[in-house]
């Protein structure tokens, strides 16, 4: 019985069927309400010694360095590093919170300035909140045009990743 997984890297998502012999990947493309898988692409992945693995498909073999930590696989291949999120098949793994992510602190940080108040109309790229962490000022900017509907932080407050600092209506 193959193991079925969902894999996400950035905005790209795949479903995988993994057997003892190979990994079959189908890219998931968004089409209306239903995600449509494309035809499967087969890879053979085997250990290559040290930290390395070798992934082979019809086009040839690639050496890579890879490590899995909880649900994220870090893979360095061809001079690029990827962070692949692994989820059980069936569970909707695609992130639907990209704006939420954009409006949340990327790390524990201190709010040094709030540049907007609810009701403000902002343009993509406008500064919403200035944070500071690691001795650097980190701007949180509007991911697109819209109206600020709420501000959830105070100047001087220590804020944590995962919680939006500002709500925006993109209407």
């Amino acid at each position, binding site marked *: 019985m193959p193991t079925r997984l969902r894999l996400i890297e950035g905005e790209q998502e795949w479903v995988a069927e993994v057997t003892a012999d190979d990994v079959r990947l189908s890219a998931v493309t968004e089409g209306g309400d239903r995600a449509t898988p494309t035809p499967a692409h087969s890879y053979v992945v085997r250990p290559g010694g040290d930290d390395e693995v070798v992934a082979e498909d019809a086009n040839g073999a690639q050496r890579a360095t890879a490590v899995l930590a909880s649900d994220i696989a870090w893979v360095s291949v*061809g001079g690029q590093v990827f962070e692949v999120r692994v989820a059980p098949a069936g569970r909707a793994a695609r992130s639907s919170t990209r704006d939420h992510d954009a409006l949340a602190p990327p790390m*524990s940080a201190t709010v040094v300035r709030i540049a907007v108040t609810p009701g403000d109309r902002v343009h993509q790229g406008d500064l919403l909140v200035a944070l500071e962490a690691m001795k650097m000022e980190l701007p949180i900017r509007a991911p697109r045009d819209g109206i600020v509907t709420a501000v959830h932080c105070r100047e001087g407050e220590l804020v944590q990743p995962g919680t939006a600092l500002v709500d925006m209506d993109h209407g």
Partner: protein
Amino acid sequence: MIRRVLIANRGEIARRVIRTCRAMNIKTVAVFSEADADTPHVREADEAVGLGRAPATESYLNISKVIDAARRTAADAVHPGYGFLSENPAFVEACEAAGLIFVGPPGSVLREMGSKTGTRAAVAKAGVPVVPGATPRSQESSAIGASIREVGLPVMLKASGGGGGKGMRIVRRQEEIDGAIESARGEARRSFGNDALYVERLIERARHVEVQIFADRQGNAVHLFERDCTLQRRHQKVIEEAPAPTLTDALRDRLTQAALKVARTVGYVNAGTVEFLVDESGNGEPDFYFLEMNTRLQVEHPITEAITGLDLVRAQLQVADGEPLPFRQADIGINGHAIECRVYAEDPERLLPQSGRLLRYREPAGDGIRVDSGVVQGQQITVHYDPLIAKLIVHAPTRTEAIDRLLDAIGRFTILGIRHNLSFLSALLRRAEVASNTTHTRFIEEHLGELVTRPDPALRQTAAAIAARLATSEPVPVEQDQSTAAFDPWQTLGPVRW
């Protein structure tokens, strides 16, 4: 006679100082915060003293705790590294009051130099061109605004107590003035505890060239040639090289002589760096301006060590101990070309520092490659300090060979578990403008979009296949570096992903 040195710093620079102390048979004392208890500099020192909680203000920036640690361990000298307390006159005075040798300029020199604005005035008086600017009559926003109007837009707002790119803001338009004053002030206050600002004309498209100088108490002063640090982002240096590739011999001579004049003007002792903006565009303006003087060892000192073959930390310790400089000007030459790049835990696309665990960490090694790092595999990069992971330094007979060597070394540097800027550095070094030396201090900002590596779809899908295989295989624990056996097993913490 210095026998035991307390290193009032962390990470790569603490390890760097320990290396030279060992070579000189000097005992070392490390200090550390709770966040750094298991880091390499703590293990490598002969003794280590915990300072307190992770925030720098409660540990590495806390003068009385550092002095107390030196007293308790019977250290006779303190090396401040860079950043933290390295340029803090109160710290130098506290060391002197406690009978400790401060490895750097004496407090009297720092007092004499006063603020950046005071040094600017002294340097201008000595006949070295300074960037045109104005010191506001008071720190009221209206007075700073008046100075900005006097200098004329665009300007650079700078912190009088500053350095390291903190508390600096470019102002191009009238409506940006208030916001820039406010954010520069805030950053200056948090970084240096001093929010005084001054105004300089913004000189764009210049090159940043700095001269390493060294002076002793006997009155000898030499220069160790220059470094070009033009490739910067947000006023933070990214790639540095020595010698500066665009200088004519005549201009090199004038710059090094100007740097020595600055050093003599302020009565400088120990290692220091005089920074200049070089603008050879002509138009009747001076072809270089004094920017500021840094009264410490620079982050990028290894490229000077590479081309001169000298150990700057050794000379710092000797001069601090009252000995004359171990080299004369005639002994110092340039051999080959060196380049350093700063490897940061940073999301290259969103330009945000990252924290997380180094699940795989393998440094490149080989002829002409030096890696100064403060980390080992398995270590957590925390939010508390600078996101520098390592400095990768190469040395080769020519600049072209140095770039090739650096690109190869970057390709063999493996860092997994945290986002970093290695691919960004590689893209930058491959630019034709870098090869032809037609970059300027705003080059990275102007070309950022082209320097961020877009994921290759085929590689990305291959990565997904590898991820699927790993996720369905038996777990293999992360190997701990031999020297990091004290760490928690990786399973208990797991990485944090932002």
